[in-house]
């Protein structure tokens, strides 16, 4: 009987578990690890990192490494600003716009380094500015911001280095299709955001 009750409670607990929503605190997970998850679980951030990673993955090693370093520096600057200034209203929009442009470039397979580097800087700053966690404590905020920075940089490095290995014709086609999807999602999301903002004031 007890087993049955335990099973029922377990099932209820599992079913009750809700997905992590955009910018809501991840219940029970804080600190640096919470920040890492924050960087990876927010769709806008994930899409921005994916687009930038795919774009950098198509570059030569030096250009790719430089792009990651530029992103790293931009994230640091952005995180410092985020720690000081709490509200960054348009950061997500800027990150989406950067992701959309990068997606278009990946779809077109036209990725000049001089275009990728500024986009890496813009994406890095916007990513950091949009990453302020909704927690009350300053220490916890700083810990989560550090985690967010680490998570974003590691994710970008993994995606860009991983996509650099995709060299066959089929892989290139898949990357182009992914790029077009990212661009299409960014365009739709941006338009919906702007219209929603205008409609709701």
């Amino acid at each position, binding site marked *: 009987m007890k087993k049955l009750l335990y099973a029922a409670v377990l099932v209820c607990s599992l079913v009750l578990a809700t997905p992590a929503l955009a910018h809501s605190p991840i219940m029970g997970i804080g600190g640096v690890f919470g920040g890492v998850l924050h960087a990876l679980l927010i769709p806008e951030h994930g899409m921005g990192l994916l687009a930038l990673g795919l774009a950098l993955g198509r570059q030569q090693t030096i250009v790719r490494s430089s792009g990651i370093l530029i992103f790293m520096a931009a994230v640091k600057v952005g995180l410092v600003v985020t720690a000081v200034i709490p509200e960054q209203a348009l950061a997500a929009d800027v990150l989406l716009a950067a992701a959309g442009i990068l997606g278009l470039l990946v779809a077109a397979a036209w990725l000049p380094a001089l275009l990728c580097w500024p986009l890496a800087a813009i994406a890095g700053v916007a990513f950091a500015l949009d990453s302020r966690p909704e927690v009350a404590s300053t220490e916890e905020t700083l810990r989560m911001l550090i985690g967010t920075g680490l998570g974003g940089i590691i994710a970008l490095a993994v995606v860009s280095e991983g996509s650099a290995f995709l060299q066959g014709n089929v892989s290139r086609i898949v990357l182009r299709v992914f790029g077009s999807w990212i661009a299409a999602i960014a365009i739709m*999301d941006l338009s919906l955001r702007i219209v929603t903002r205008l409609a709701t004031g």
Partner: protein
Amino acid sequence: MAPGVASFASRRKISRSLLHPLPLAAMLITSSDALAHSENGAAIDFAGGFTHPIFGPDHVIAMVAVGLWGAFLGVPAIWVLPVVFPLVMAVAGAVGVAGVPLPGVEIGIALSAIALGGMVAFAAKPPLWVAAILVGAFAVFHGHAHGAELPVGADAIAYSMGFVVATGMLHASGIAFGGLSHWPSGRVAVRAAGAVISLIGVAYLVRSI
């Protein structure tokens, strides 16, 4: 009565008495909140975006036709057309979301099914740029129709992701079926599918006029 049987019967009795309230309690506890919905009842989340193109048969046949035609034309059309379509569709969708009117949307959608299905049925092989422009032009109507119907609300990115992924999967299903054109009998099947799509498009055109 054997002890084992008695204990089994008693256990069964207890289980029955417990099992009736337990599912009820579980259902009551696990009933979730109503998520963001638009005024017309469409969910504004990934599932809502994913099902939006799938539940419109006129959109489905046109998107499948894009994949079919791409597969029929071969490389590079097999990926160029499914890349062009969502990009143009998203831009037109943004225009639709903004409330900019586009006349003859339903007619355009019906014509897209007729034309794209016809291209497959007649095994038309125009230059790539012509095919891309044609697909892009029809994507304008599909994108605008979707954009105009889009609910203004929360979780725009999840909705957009679902929408684009569903569109891509419809293209992929068309490409997969179009892959049959490598064999003579499969080629007949693909062209027949194109003809069917075209005929369905005619039915939609008659209805929309």
